[in-house]
C-alpha cells in the first residue's frame, strides 16, 4: 500500500503536536528528489512474485492486482529491484 500522506500540514505553531505522537502520515514529506533513474515495470513480464518488494530498501513497492506497482514519491532509484527481477520485468529509465 502506498503510504498515506496526510493532507493537512501545520500552518501555525499551534498545529505542531506536543510530542512525537500523531495520526499516521502527519508531516510525512515526499522524498525522491535525488532520483535520476526510475524503475518501470513491464506489466506483460511481471509475474507478481514480489522478489522486488522483498528487496526494495525503501519499501516503495506494493501489489496491484497480480502485478506490482512503485511509489515514485519515495523511490530513490537505486535499481536493486531491477537486479533482483529474474523475469526482466523492470527497466531503469533516465529521469527527465
Amino acid at each position: 500500500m502506498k503510504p498515506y500522506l496526510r493532507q493537512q500540514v501545520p500552518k501555525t505553531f499551534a498545529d505542531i503536536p506536543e510530542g512525537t505522537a500523531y495520526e499516521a502520515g502527519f508531516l510525512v514529506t515526499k522524498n525522491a528528489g535525488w532520483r535520476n533513474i526510475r524503475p518501470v515495470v513491464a506489466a506483460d513480464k511481471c509475474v507478481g512474485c514480489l522478489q522486488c518488494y522483498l528487496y526494495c530498501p525503501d519499501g516503495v513497492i506494493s501489489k496491484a492486482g497480480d502485478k506490482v506497482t512503485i511509489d515514485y514519491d519515495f523511490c530513490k532509484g537505486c535499481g536493486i529491484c531491477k537486479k533482483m527481477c529474474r523475469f526482466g520485468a523492470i527497466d531503469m529509465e533516465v529521469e527527465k
Partner: protein
Amino acid sequence: MAKEFLSGNEAFAYGIRLARPQVISAYPITPQTIVVEKLSEMVEDTSLQAEFIHVESEHSALSCAIGASAVGARAFTATSSQGLLYMAECLTYASGGRFPIVMMNANRSTALPWNIYGDQRDSLSLLDCGWIQAYAENAQESLDLALMSYYIAEHKAVSTPFMANLDGFVLTHTYEVVEVPEKEQADLFLQPYKTENKMDLATPRNLAFSVGPDHNIAFKYKEHVGILNAKKAILEAESKFAEIFGRKYSGLTESYHTEDADYIIITLGSIAGLVKETVDKLRAQGEKVGLLRLRYMRPFPNEEVAAAVKNAKAIGVLEKDISFGNEGTVYTNVNSALQKAGISVPSSNYIGGLGGRNIPEEEILYIFEDLKNEKGIIEFLGVGGAKA
C-alpha cells in the same frame, strides 16, 4: 511517617517505591548498584508492584524505559558515569519523545584514568540532552526528590524526563536518619500517570516519527518550552509536598545567608553541607559570607542566581567538573545568568573533588579568603595552587 536509617541510594529507592513505577529497567554500575538492588528486593517481596527488567546494558536500560513510557507506563532507571555516557544516545530519544522517565544518576568520575569515585562530570557533560537535572544534598532530599520527580516530569505542561543526581559514595553510600512518608500520603501527592503520548490500540497513532527540516525546529522549541515550564511545576510540586508532608524546599536554588553576604560560594550537591557549616563558622567570626546551592541545573535558575548574588563583592563557583579547554560548566552558566541580568560581580571558578578527591573545610575557607583578592581565575584545588 516512619524514621529509618538509610543511605542515599536506599532513600532514593524508598522514594521511588512510593511513586509506584510500573516498569524498572536497569544495569548495575558502582556506585548506583544499591538503588536497583533495593528496588529489586521490593519487587521480590511484592511491596512494590512493578516489572523489574534485567537488561544487558545501560543503552538497553533506557531504551526499555522509553518503550514502557511509550505505552503509558511510569518508568524508572538508574545509572552512573560510563553507564550514563553509554546511554547518551537514548537520552535525546526520551526527551525529544517527551517521555517523562525518571532516572537516578550516581555522580561518578569518567575514564580515563579509570576511577569509580564521585565527581559531576558525567551528568554535567550531558546538560544539553533535554533532561531536567536536579542535584540532591542529602538522603532526605534524595527520597523527596524521587517522589517529586514524577510529579514534575509528568506535569502536563512539562512532559520531560528527569535526572536526579546523587554524589557517588559521599551521598549514595553514607547513612542518615530519613523520614519515610506513608503510602497513603504519597498517593495523595502523586496521581497515576495519564498521557495521550502513548501507543493506544483504540486510537492508533504514529509514535516517535521523523520530522524534516521544515518543522523540526518547531518541535525543538516546544521541547525547550516544556523544560522551562518545569520551573513552575517544581514550585507547584514543592508547595503541594509541603502541604502533605510538612517539609519545605526552596525551588531551583537554596540560599544560605546570601542576603547580606559580601562573598558567596555557589555550588551543587552534597558538598553544600560542608559549605553551610563553614559559613556558620565564619559568620560567628563576623565574616559576611554565604552559600547559594543550585538544586537544579536544567532548567537553569538564571533569575534566582542573579537575584541572590547581585549585592555581593565577589562570588566563587565551586564545582566537581571541568569543560576541558574552557572552564567549569557551572561557572559558564552562572556568568551567563549575571551577564543577562546586567550584574557585574567579580567571579572565580574553583574546580575540586575530581575523581572523588575530598574537599576539606580548609579548601572552603581558602576559597572564601581567596575571593577577597582574586577575580576571573580558574583554579584546580589540590594541585598546588595551579591556575588556568
